[in-house]
């Protein structure tokens, strides 16, 4: 198990290497550069800036320079925020983003899974219709619409929660709900489908033939088996949530790193863009390892060696 884990974690390195090469190449292939703005800088100034930041070097030299810094934990200078390094920017916002992501994830799990279970148990009756409707609305409502609706009702009309900033727990409520809306729906749908599949299994009939209480049949025999496929999607969902959301962080004015995914592209802030990409790639790769470990925990048929 330990060897397996070590091997899986080491495999993250080539994944990150590949992702970095592709992103680096694409990023520099896009026209424009970090110095572009409405007012064009004189060519001389641009050349001087390029020389200062090493952008006049061939691309592979630039990559080696960046990669050398990255492995030493130096994410490079920001091209846009001149007085700050990318390390500063990321370390300032990352914990806010991760906190919001984890809260939204927990909300999604603790609402989505029960919602899916309830739907499956009331299959083709009102609990199912209710839960399925909630899921469809959740899947098809973009997060900015949900965010704005939440702001209008709970912020403006009812005045229960503040609508922006990140000062304390009351600030956390609306963004967490807005961010969790989509994954709640996704998890509920997966759980429902998986439960319905398990309900038809022979071993459920065996459990019933033992005269167990319905609750015992559902909890001990159905849910655990039904969660195996659900765990598969939880990994990518968590990776997606903890790396932040441009929309939610912008709407609620949250000082996280999620908004940099978009802004760093727009401003060709090369090193910030690389940092964000690597962050996301690492989160996805790492969560996949976590999911595989969880599999072995849930399903005794799976053992790693």
């Amino acid at each position, binding site marked *: 198990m330990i060897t397996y884990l070590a091997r899986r974690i080491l495999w993250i390195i080539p994944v990150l290497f590949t992702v970095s090469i592709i992103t680096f190449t694409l990023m520099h292939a896009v026209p424009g550069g970090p110095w572009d703005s409405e007012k064009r800088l004189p060519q001389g100034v641009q050349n001087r800036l390029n020389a200062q930041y090493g952008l006049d070097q061939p691309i592979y030299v630039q990559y080696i320079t960046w990669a050398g810094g990255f492995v030493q934990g130096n994410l490079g200078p920001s091209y846009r925020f001149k007085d700050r390094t990318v390390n500063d920017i990321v370390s300032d916002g990352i914990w806010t983003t991760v906190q919001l992501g984890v809260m939204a994830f927990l909300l999604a799990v603790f609402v989505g899974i029960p919602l899916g279970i309830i739907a499956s148990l009331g299959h083709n009756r009102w609990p199912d219709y209710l839960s399925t409707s909630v899921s469809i609305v959740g899947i098809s409502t973009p997060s900015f619409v949900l965010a704005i609706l939440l702001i209008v009702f709970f912020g403006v009309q009812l005045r229960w929660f503040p609508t922006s900033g990140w000062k304390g727990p009351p600030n956390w409520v609306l963004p967490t709900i807005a961010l969790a809306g989509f994954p709640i729906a996704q998890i509920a749908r997966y759980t429902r489908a998986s439960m319905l599949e398990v309900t038809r299994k*022979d071993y459920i009939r065996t459990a019933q*033939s033992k*005269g167990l209480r319905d609750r015992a049949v559902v909890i001990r025999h159905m849910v655990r*088996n039904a969660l195996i496929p659900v765990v598969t999607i939880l990994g990518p969902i968590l990776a997606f949530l903890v790396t932040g959301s441009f929309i939610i962080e912008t709407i609620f004015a949250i000082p996280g790193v999620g908004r940099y995914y978009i802004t760093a592209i727009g401003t060709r802030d090369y090193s910030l863009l690389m940092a964000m990409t690597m962050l996301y790639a690492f989160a996805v790769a790492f969560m996949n390892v976590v999911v595989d470990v969880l599999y072995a925990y849930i399903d005794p048929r799976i053992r790693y060696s």
Partner: protein
Amino acid sequence: MEQSDADVSTADLPSIIELSPDEARRASSEAVIETGAKRNADKLLEVRGLKTQFFTADGVIQAVDDVSFDVGYGETLGLVGESGCGKSVSALSIARLVPDPPGKIVAGQILFDGIDILKLSNEAMRKLRGKEIGFIFQDPLTSLNPTLTIGYQISEAIREHMGLSPRAARDRVVELLAKVGIPRPADRLKDYPHQFSGGMRQRVMIAIALSCDPKLILADEPTTALDVTIQAQILELIQRLSHEFGTAVLLITHDLGIAAGMCDRVNVMYAGRIVETGTVDTMFENPQMPYAWGLLDSLPRIDDIRGAKLRTIEGLPPLLISPPDACRFGPRCRYVRDICREDEPELTERAGEGHFARCWATEPGGWIS
């Protein structure tokens, strides 16, 4: 070990009273009063006019259509027929495990040890299931939960129905595993089903079925998914343990050879109906229904010529949506006459004790004698 075994089987008479809380007693006595049913001295199970139907988009499938039979205390009754003739649904109906929807028991009476099962509340029925009625299913690979240990799966019913402490339940599980022939049982409690072979898994299923000393075991094709050498062992085990515990067995099989070796009496089912019933001896010496002949004839024999085609019954069983008033086997019968197509024969008495068949041709005055 022996002691606790004896303790359990002293719950011999209405042991639902002995071991379950008051509700079960009330439920069972209520049921008896409600229906005015009297406990028949030698019948453990009486099924009367059972009809189980499946309500599907294509129509109502009459899977079990007016079926009646008895099982005596400690008796082994065979239920024989092709796939889809209603054997399994009959067994599921007795335990009220027919998936609903789409299935429903629409008519009939099932008396189990004097209790009218179809009138019980769900809760009272649940307390009977696993406790008084054990189930062995066909495929031991899919019938055991892959994510729970063997020990846990066997102990579940014991803990639910017998109120034993976890320790005592564990001891009983070890004892059961030893009884069904699992070597080093104490070491295997923590194993999962995938760590057992097919035959071993079926032994575990048998241990589950026997775990609370039931009066009746419903064995639904218990050896169909196993290879032939294992089949014999499993059947021998079921037979030995049912004799040892005095458990009645309803053995469902499509294999007349198995029925002949295991059963006291045999019911042949076809298209949702019982078409012939009798003791094993009369049935095999003097079968009275062309379908039974077909089943007997399709058994491979030791003197068959190597490589020769196996004998089959031509055609397929009819769809059970609105069956006509005619002999249901008629379309596949070699001896069919007009009357078979116009009127369905009743189960009528034949030579031999308790021997009945549903066939115009073999009735007195029929065209086969």
